[in-house]
């Protein structure tokens, strides 16, 4: 942090340099809870932070901006927030001009999920009371989502993505006078056209309008903008989607479900008894799915003219810390915060539910729903995460998520890393391939449940199979085990096996049988990849030692 200003902007004049250096040092400590600044009232603190952020933005001091985003008040106000998000996200995902993805912008082919998008968009911005404005916000939301999907057709849309994008829409549109129809709608060629067709603004006609003029609706990336900058908005959504939400946009929800499993792990670290009490060792944490998929924007709906709304500050934090572990940690913190109430409700309802999946879901929902409105609890959670930023080192839980996951790559909490869009696309493609592999092997496992076991059983029980063969197979297997045992590689394998078994246990409880292939296939996979056993053994033990402290 200290040497950074000079390194970042060597051309600064000395006075500017000292000012930004000043900001830099200030930013580090001033805006946390226990700072001296608390002598001033909140408004004064805000004003001060605003001017500090302006300076930092002016200097394009990326690292300090991150620090500021993570501290109290986040990026303070909507106009600043917009600039900061753009500054950070465009830095995190670099789109070089002339790269394949800028020319690909005009992709016009309809995305397979557009129907679902329009269904969800029709149900967005419900808190906006002005019908006309609501309609416009929805149009913009739909346009942004469709543009992203068409630009990256490999991404799949999920319900909840529209909630995330609506946060960006609200931040970027606020303060712009969009009563002026022309101003708002001439943003990208397409709308003026569709607006002519539907001057009465009937919502039912909207989808028709979109599909009838699809070919030119989304292809025009107009460069001149009046009012707000849609390009900036699009860039932000694009970066956030690719770097932070990639896991969620596969063909299935397997990867986000993997992510959810970190929540029980965090809870377990805090209180093993509570973890056991909620049966989190046996059930899937599906109760958290909407919070995680939407980074809490499903629960905490964004609305205009509320710059202090905690949802914005949560996004400030996530973007500044470049971490998707944050929402998971926040959820775990929230559960821990409500521990006593949850236990109480659990005990009171133990007879009211059919099974523990229902019970835990019902109880947690019952306890958390009132917190949706309670600013206080969210503030507290945010403060807690702020004062203890992602100490949860994701590497400990490496085994729980796929190796291309956002949690391990583009949103791992490793600050100040930036990616070229091409590299992220490669990551995305690898992740998609892994996902479909997993999907097919799951389907296969479903079709041929316990086939191997049954074959073995049949083999050994069948009379036609000579005894001598049975014995020799037995002896052979024994020999392999002896060899592995003497190598010490069995011992080394145990922790990994435990992780896989745990995974299997979780899923089998929910009737998913997902882990099945992984329990046995993966160690074998390793074995086949590295035919020389000693090397393999050392590799495994190396990977074990890194995950040893994870306390599984």
């Amino acid at each position, binding site marked *: 942090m200290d040497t950074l200003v000079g390194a970042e902007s060597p051309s600064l004049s000395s006075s500017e340099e000292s000012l930004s250096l000043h900001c830099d040092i200030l930013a580090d400590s001033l805006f946390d809870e226990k700072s001296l600044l608390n002598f001033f009232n909140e408004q004064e603190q805000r004003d001060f932070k605003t001017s500090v952020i302006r300076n930092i933005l002016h200097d394009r001091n990326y690292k300090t901006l991150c620090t500021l985003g993570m501290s109290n008040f986040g990026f303070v106000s909507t106009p600043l927030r917009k600039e900061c998000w753009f500054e950070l996200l465009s830095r995190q995902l670099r789109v070089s001009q002339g790269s394949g993805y800028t020319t690909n912008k005009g992709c016009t082919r309809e995305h397979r999920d557009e129907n679902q998008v329009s269904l969800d968009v029709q149900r967005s911005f419900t808190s906006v009371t002005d019908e006309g404005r609501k309609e416009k916000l929805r149009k913009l939301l739909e346009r942004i989502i469709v543009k992203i999907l068409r630009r990256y057709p490999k991404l*799949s849309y999920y*319900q909840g993505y529209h909630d995330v994008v609506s946060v960006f829409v609200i931040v970027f549109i606020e303060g712009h006078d969009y009563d002026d129809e022309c101003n708002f709608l001439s943003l990208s060629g397409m709308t003026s056209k569709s607006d002519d067709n539907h001057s009465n603004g009937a919502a039912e006609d909207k989808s028709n309008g979109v599909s009838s003029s699809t070919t030119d609706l989304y292809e025009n990336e107009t460069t001149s903008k009046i009012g707000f900058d849609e390009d900036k908005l699009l860039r932000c959504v694009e970066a956030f989607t690719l770097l932070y939400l990639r896991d969620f946009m596969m063909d299935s*929800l397997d990867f986000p479900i993997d992510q959810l499993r970190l929540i029980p792990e965090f809870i377990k670290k805090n209180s093993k008894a509570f973890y056991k009490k909620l049966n989190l060792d*046996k059930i899937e944490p*599906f109760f958290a799915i909407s919070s995680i998929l939407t980074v809490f924007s499903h629960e905490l709906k964004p609305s205009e003219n509320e710059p202090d709304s905690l949802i914005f500050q949560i996004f400030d934090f996530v973007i500044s810390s470049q971490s998707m572990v944050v929402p998971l940690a926040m959820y775990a913190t929230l559960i821990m915060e409500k521990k006593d109430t949850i236990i109480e409700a659990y005990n009171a309802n133990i*007879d009211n539910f059919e099974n523990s*999946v229902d019970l835990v879901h019902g109880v947690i929902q019952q306890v958390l729903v009132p917190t949706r409105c309670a600013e206080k609890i969210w503030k507290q959670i945010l403060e807690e995460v702020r004062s203890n930023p992602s100490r949860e080192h994701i590497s400990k839980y490496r085994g729980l998520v796929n190796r291309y996951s956002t949690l391990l790559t583009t949103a791992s909490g490793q600050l100040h890393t930036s990616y070229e869009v091409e590299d992220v696309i490669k990551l995305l493609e690898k992740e998609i391939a892994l996902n479909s592999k997993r999907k097919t092997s799951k389907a296969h496992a479903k079709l041929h449940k316990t086939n191997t076991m049954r074959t073995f059983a049949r083999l050994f029980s069948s009379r036609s199979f000579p005894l001598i063969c049975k014995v020799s197979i037995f002896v052979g297997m024994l020999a392999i085990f002896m060899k592995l045992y003497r190598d010490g590689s069995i011992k080394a394998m145990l922790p990994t096996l435990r992780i896989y078994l745990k995974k299997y*246990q*979780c899923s089998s409880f929910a*009737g998913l049988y997902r882990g099945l292939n992984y329990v046995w296939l993966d160690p074998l996979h390793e074995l086949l990849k590295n035919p020389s056993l000693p090397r393999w053994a050392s590799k495994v033990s190396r990977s074990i030692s890194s995950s040893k402290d994870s306390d599984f």
Partner: protein
Amino acid sequence: MSGLRTVSASAGSGKSYDSIMKILLIGDSGVGKSCLLVRFVDDKFNPSFITTIGIDFKIKTVDINGKKIKLQLWDTAGQERFRTITTAYYRGAMGIILVYDVTDERTFANIRQWFKTVNEHANDDAQLLLVGNKSDMETRTVTLEQGETLAKELGIPFVESSAKNDDNVNEIFFTLAKLIQEKIDNDKLAGGTSGKDSSININSGGSGSKSGCC
């Protein structure tokens, strides 16, 4: 299973109900599952009700034949990808409501798929009900007869409803609750089953761990 729950609930420390029924709403995205539920539970209607992500849960206590019955209502996300999650909640559902939108043929055609999913994941004795929602709309593409024919074919009762006009909404839940209650009573009369049921119920908490370790 439900039979015992009735007993244990009333035997419990002064509970305010006689029994609990777990009911699930399923069907394609946008057919109005949440709207039906909100109409029934809160007697409200909002045409742009929010999207359900994952699974949502509500409770309403109703009076059926003088018995206080607590309905545990589970609302599910319609998008196909959420099925991995929502099917985890099918277990133990006593009633399942399959909803389609009378103005959208696709949602009607998909009912067969939903029916299949139910057969794969739900208890065999779950009581099903087919609902054609948005019956108030003039843009209907699925006729009442089509709905009736499908229901007959699947062997389940059928209702058309409108959450907007509050047509037949209460009927959906009351019909289903009554059917479930009848089933419970019949099982009780048949006797013998209650013993079997109780053993299931006692273990229901631990059944998870059982399946987890093998």
